[in-house]
């Protein structure tokens, strides 16, 4: 900041506060609505402050779910979301770090072909090849399984590139020192490369956890068994549950529950998150 004009400072803070309000207000309303009963939300204007039914609403959601939407407890959906998010996250990190290791530290026929194959996955998001991918998963008998929910999503060009970039910045002398210290390729990877990648792994973990947790289309396709529903996908059944009007206090409660884990991860590990996000895109 070059000059210190009071008006400019005022405008700066006004802009920021307005922005914060715009971003926070919807979630505020969701929180408020989730603590009221159906009566308070049936007529305009709805209350802007918390009601007294929060405890009841959330206990019912977590343990029993919504009868109109299949009666799956949200607690179970959240467990499914957690399993899916963690498997996708660790799966992506694991297969990406080893393929990046192979591509950077070895010379072998088809090395570049493999690199380009991984790169091309960037151009083939699930959304554009929904039906045939569904067919493949069906043929493999992976519908309604955790494997079907997660494995097709764990290829990751982004994570592979990030690790590749990081490996390229590691001085060659470190590998040479390790070779003189009698470390072979596997030992070098486990003893040196993996510990050195800790920060990158942690940063990627955050981004990928959010990615995994927030999956919607894929669980929608491969799960028809309610025992495998995830919270982000499950909410849709509450909003569009046939003839009956949505029960908004439960829907908002579910929305709040569904956003807590990823938001907590981002806020708690903010520094790593920012590093991971900005670097994985470069």
């Amino acid at each position: 900041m070059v000059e210190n004009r009071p008006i400019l400072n005022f405008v700066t803070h006004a802009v920021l506060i307005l922005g914060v309000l715009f971003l926070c207000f919807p979630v505020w309303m969701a929180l408020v609505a989730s603590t009221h009963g159906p009566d308070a939300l049936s007529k305009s204007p709805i209350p802007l402050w918390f009601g007294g039914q929060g405890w009841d609403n959330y206990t019912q959601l977590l343990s029993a779910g919504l009868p109109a939407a299949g009666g799956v407890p949200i607690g179970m959906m959240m467990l499914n979301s957690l399993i899916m998010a963690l498997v996708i996250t660790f799966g992506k990190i694991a297969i990406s770090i080893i393929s990046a290791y192979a591509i950077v530290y070895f010379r072998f026929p088809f090395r570049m072909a493999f690199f380009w194959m991984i790169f091309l996955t960037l151009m083939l998001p699930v959304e554009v090849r929904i039906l045939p991918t569904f067919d493949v998963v069906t043929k493999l008998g992976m519908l309604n399984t955790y494997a079907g929910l997660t494995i097709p999503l764990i290829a990751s060009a982004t994570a592979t590139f990030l690790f590749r970039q990081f490996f390229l910045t590691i001085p060659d002398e470190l590998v040479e020192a390790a070779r003189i210290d009698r470390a072979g390729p596997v030992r070098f990877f486990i003893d040196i490369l993996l510990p050195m990648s800790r920060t990158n792994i942690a940063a990627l973990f955050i981004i990928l956890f959010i990615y995994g947790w927030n999956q919607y289309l894929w669980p929608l396709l491969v799960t028809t068994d309610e025992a495998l529903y995830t919270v982000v996908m499950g909410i849709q059944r509450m909003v569009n549950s046939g003839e009956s009007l949505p029960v908004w206090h439960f829907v908002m409660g579910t929305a709040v529950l569904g956003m807590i884990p990823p938001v907590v991860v981002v806020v708690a590990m903010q520094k790593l998150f920012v590093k991971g996000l900005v670097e994985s895109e470069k």
Partner: protein
Amino acid sequence: MQKRVIFRSKSLPYLLVLPQIVITLVFFFWPSYQALESSFFIEDAFGFSREWVGLRNYAELFADPGYLRSFRTTLIFGLSVAALALGMSLGLAVAANRVLRAAQVYRTLLIWPYAVAPALAGVIWYFLMNPSMGIVAYWLEGLGVEWNHYVNGDQALLLVVVAAAWKQVSYNFLFFLAGLQSIPKSLIEAAAIDRAGPIRRFWTITLPLLSPTTFFLLVVNLVYAFFDTFALIHATTEGGPADATSVLVFRVYNTGFIGQDYGSSAAQSVILMALVMGMTFIQFRYVERKVNY
């Protein structure tokens, strides 16, 4: 991208790339090939027989006013989301870059929506704007705007635009802030010595230097709006009313899963793939990226 030192091993590297390559082949390349193949066939609803029809699926698509309207809707949707999300986040980033104290607090308060799933963001805004009891709809009514996205297609589109942009602000904000922080302070100070005021400095120094970031974000935002917002639309308007929010990805899903028209859905997939490839190409070709390959 060459390392001077490499390990000598014949089989290990193949073992290392194997998992990723298998998943890529089975779940990316094979389905993509199938989409390409079945886009040249018409299949009956039970999958018993199919007939080679050449480019007819494509021809029918481009003759279908509904599909062309989807193109238009997608474009309007994408550009609106990008404009809104980029505009807001740039303003916020410039402001946050000026704040010395409390910058950390503002940043925390501004980045968390990144973590909210598009579906949940959509549902919450759907609730806020609900014509009968949504608080925003109520306020709009006070301003004399009659809001009902169940009937009014434009309003429905606006609803999903706002919800999609709301979620994307955090992402853009972080990149703009990083871009602003990488502009050397001395440059701004030199401009100040050259008697450029803060607003002039913004237009003549800051914005041009941010243009790589802006362009990169524009592409990312369009990709996000075109492909990642399926969940948002599916969980809320379900493409309606009267196809007003039926963007291309939603249509692929609808044609294939609801309409059971595999050939047409596959043709739509192929068109979308071409679109993503084009955008990815632009992103890598014209945006400064650190990937050298």
